[in-house]
């Protein structure tokens, strides 16, 4: 039952894309004009960003045009592709090193970050895997399988190092596992493991991470060194006030803020446009989240639902992490702000994810029935018991024989379910 897509998603995309373009120009132009490295060209980043915008629009259209069935079919290739790129980037001589990290592939002036693309590929793969697995995700075997595959990606990404992207992927995995009905105890267990993993990384890994942690806890203690990023960012945001210092009039962008057009662009926006602007940005990401979950609730197909949730969550999660760093409630990790941070790979990935969401919105059944609280429809209400769910994993744990029987049952049900949903688009 193919329908018209939700145009508000397109509108959101356009607003954010435009805001990003304007703010990247504002944040980067004065310093580019002053520095010889950029040929004193104030349009240096704007020009490159516009190229990225075109590529991004291409990615958006591609994602929109893709046939979900084919996407589903080739999803293992997505995972393999991501894996391959992430391995390649780590190979000396192939991966390009910059700012102390081996994150780029490519040649000449054309480079990209495989880890960024991996985010989108991972969302597709994860959605397909969980949709296919269905209720079997309650089985620890499947749970561990997908967790293991994800951790493999994360390890490769972290090896670059790029903790931010690795954390985004972890976040999406947890969200998607929960929505797919995985056992909460398992989810909490891997969360605990993740926390332990991060602690281990902090102690054994790069020393800058401990400093970042200290700086997070009290940035003003060492405002000139380890706390510098956060302090300058807080000064930018705080001095913006309600209405900001005025568009283009940021003072902090003059070499006070580091990475003012990439990771810290939100600080420039907050300073120039004040609370009015910063809150608008936060609202736009909330709207993306809302659209993602609304779209998910309105589609009957597991894969499409998970695709919508995954895409929206991936964008929103990154936005939360990035803004959190800028306003000092998340420790410093290099996560770009979708749409707004300068960076081709990030923008293309974000646009692709929005394209997927826009694509999924075509398959929604909008009959005045949202997924909001209390709008549950009677027809879906029969024969389902929450507690029954929780019993299943218990059974699995307690009795191996019972396990297998249950799986067969569930498998049958899921399969028929899936068939029904996937055929629907073709019927229309």
């Amino acid at each position, binding site marked *: 039952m193919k329908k018209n897509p939700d145009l508000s998603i397109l509108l959101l995309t356009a607003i954010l894309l435009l805001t990003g373009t304007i703010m990247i120009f504002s944040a980067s132009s004065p310093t580019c*004009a*002053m520095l*010889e*490295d950029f040929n*004193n060209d*104030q349009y240096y980043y704007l020009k490159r960003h516009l190229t990225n915008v075109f590529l991004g629009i291409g990615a958006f259209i591609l994602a929109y045009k893709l046939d979900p069935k084919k996407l589903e079919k080739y999803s293992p290739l997505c995972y393999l592709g991501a894996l391959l790129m992430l391995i390649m980037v780590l190979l000396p001589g192939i991966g390009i090193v910059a700012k102390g990290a081996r994150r780029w592939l490519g040649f000449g002036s054309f480079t990209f970050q495989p880890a960024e693309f991996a985010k989108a590929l991972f969302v597709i793969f994860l959605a397909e895997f969980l949709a296919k697995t269905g*209720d079997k995700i309650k089985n620890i075997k499947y749970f561990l399988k997908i967790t293991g595959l994800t951790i493999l990606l994360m390890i490769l990404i972290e090896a670059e190092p790029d903790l931010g992207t690795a954390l985004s992927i972890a976040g999406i995995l947890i*969200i998607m596992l*929960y*929505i797919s*009905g995985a056992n909460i105890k398992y989810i909490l267990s891997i969360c605990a493991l993740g926390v332990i993993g991060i602690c281990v990384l902090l102690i054994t890994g790069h020393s800058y991470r401990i400093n970042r942690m200290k700086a997070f806890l009290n940035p003003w203690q060492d405002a000139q060194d380890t706390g510098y990023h956060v302090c300058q960012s*807080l*000064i*930018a*945001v*705080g*001095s913006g*006030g309600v209405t900001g210092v005025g568009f283009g*009039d940021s*003072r*902090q962008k*003059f*070499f*006070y803020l580091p990475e003012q057009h990439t990771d810290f662009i939100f600080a420039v926006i*907050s300073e120039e446009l*004040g*609370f009015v602007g*910063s*809150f608008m940005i*936060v609202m736009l*990401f*909330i709207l993306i*989240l*809302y659209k993602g*979950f609304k779209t*998910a*609730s309105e589609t*009957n197909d597991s894969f499409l*639902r998970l695709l919508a*949730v995954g895409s929206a*969550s991936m964008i*929103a999660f990154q936005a*939360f992490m990035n803004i*959190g760093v800028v*306003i*000092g*409630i998340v420790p410093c990790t290099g996560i770009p702000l979708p749409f707004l941070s300068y960076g081709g790979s990030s923008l293309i990935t974000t646009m692709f994810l929005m394209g997927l969401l826009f694509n999924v919105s075509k398959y929604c059944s909008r009959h005045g029935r949202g*997924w909001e609280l209390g709008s*549950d429809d009677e*027809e*879906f*209400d*029969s*024969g*389902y*018991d*929450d507690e029954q769910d929780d019993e299943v994993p218990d059974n699995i744990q307690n009795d191996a024989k019972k396990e297998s029987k249950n799986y067969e049952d569930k498998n049958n*049900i*899921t399969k028929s*379910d899936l068939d029904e949903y996937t055929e629907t688009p073709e019927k229309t």
Partner: protein
Amino acid sequence: MIGWKKKVRKRLIDVFYILLLLFCILAYRLVSLQIFQNETYKDKAEQQHKGTVSLPALRGSIMDRKYITLANSMALSSVAADPTQIKDRKKTALLLSQVLGISEELLESKITIPTTFVWIERKIEDEKAKKIEDLKLDGVFLLKESTGKRFYPKGELASHILGCTGIDDQGLDGIEAVMDNYLKGKPGEMSAEMDRDGRIIPGGVSSIISAIQGYSVVLTIDESVQYIVENSLEKAVKAYGADSGSVLVMDAKTGEILALANKPDYKSTDPKSPNYMQLTRNSCVCDSYEPGSTFKVILAAAALDSGKVKLDDQIQCGNTIQAGGWTLHNANDGFGGNPTENITDILAYSFNTGSVAIGLKMGSKIFYDYIEKFGFGQLTGIELPGETEGILLPLNDWTEINLATISFGQGIAVTPLQIVSAVQGAINQGEQMKPRIIKQILDSEGNIVKDFKPEVKSRPISSETSYQINMILRNVIERGTGTKAKIPGYLTGGKSGTANIVENGVYAQGKYIASFIGYVPAEDPKFVMLVKIKNPKGTIWGGSVAGPIFSEIGREILWRLGIPPSFPNEINKLGATPQKNE
């Protein structure tokens, strides 16, 4: 399964609300930072952005006593550029280099500096500024700098007095240095917001406090007198093949310095010239020398004023005299001394033997007290930098030989200013005035801020003694060693001096300082002048070397100042220079 769908819906809602909660935390934090803590962060931001740039004040002028400008500053244009606005660097550099005469490479490197503001060339001439304005180059602009290069409209005239300024308009030497506090004015201030490296953020200027122009300094120097002095001195130093020469002219009544010159001098505007340190020394106040016979004026004044010697006393003279186990001679200048002479003749013919006898008669204590009263061994307090007090042995260290040699001006070192000031006191009815070179301080509108009046410094001798000294010194000119210093038509008084030069603590063989100190017109002195020539070749005697210079300069000054002659007839007869037998 339909039930499964419901479960999904519930979990979807859970996740949405959890994520929404995260965003609410962001929003809460934004409210806290941007609304409630706005003031705190605004202060922090201001603290780190605010900076000030000093706006230099226009430096005041230096003028002579007739308000003729000797040094001044102008507001000048400076060329600056915003490299980010320059489109064609090669072309811009080429065009600028044609006007400014700076190499293209240097200019190009300047306009490639990554900033929005860079100085190309500061304080350029108006013509060049006009040309650059006409070029209308993108990113190149002219700024009126409130302070300009220092200009000395009279060239090197009075360079030892005026001194010089550095590139930042600070006084380095001379009046420029001593009066810097008055001249420099009060710089203004521009508050601006700066980037992390201290560059002004475009549009970041918040307030400008204008600079206050510096005061002008009026000197006691008379520009025309100074010109005569410098001109003649330069010629004389060359003519005698001397190492150097100094002339100091002081108003005989007020102690105001009318002219002060040392030759060779230096370009007052170029601190990079070779021998700069040596050439900038203002010998008239910074260097002391052994005055030789000119010091006999002080001896005579002390002897007469103390009553130890009367005008008609016959004093032991002859050609040698014993003192402290040494035999002292007269100078080998052709004048022979009788066994006894009176004080007038001892000075007129500059007998060392007679002078020693006067000194011995008077005794160390009395002589020393007079020397001190006349201001030797002390700073005069002139408003010029680097003044020295000379060398005056403490009384306790005086032995007979010291007393004897100091009586004819050896074994004591004085500055030209000290001796001129002392003679001024000796002939001005015993009133020694404080030597001054500053007359007035004016504000930028020409109102008098400070007026320096003549000031009696001390009364070393009585007016009677002063009259006697005046009479004795006229005799020096009329019939003694100073006949060549006579200025035709004017009654002149003075004393010559020839002294050994001390080099490295010993008297240098065959090197002398020939000097003459005199005043004119003797019946009512207008000015006292010292002419001092260091190491002249050929003739070495003060009367023969410095005397004629005194006469020449003195005559011109008198004419220039319009002082009526004592004997108009003598001038009328002046077809040829007066011939006198010697």
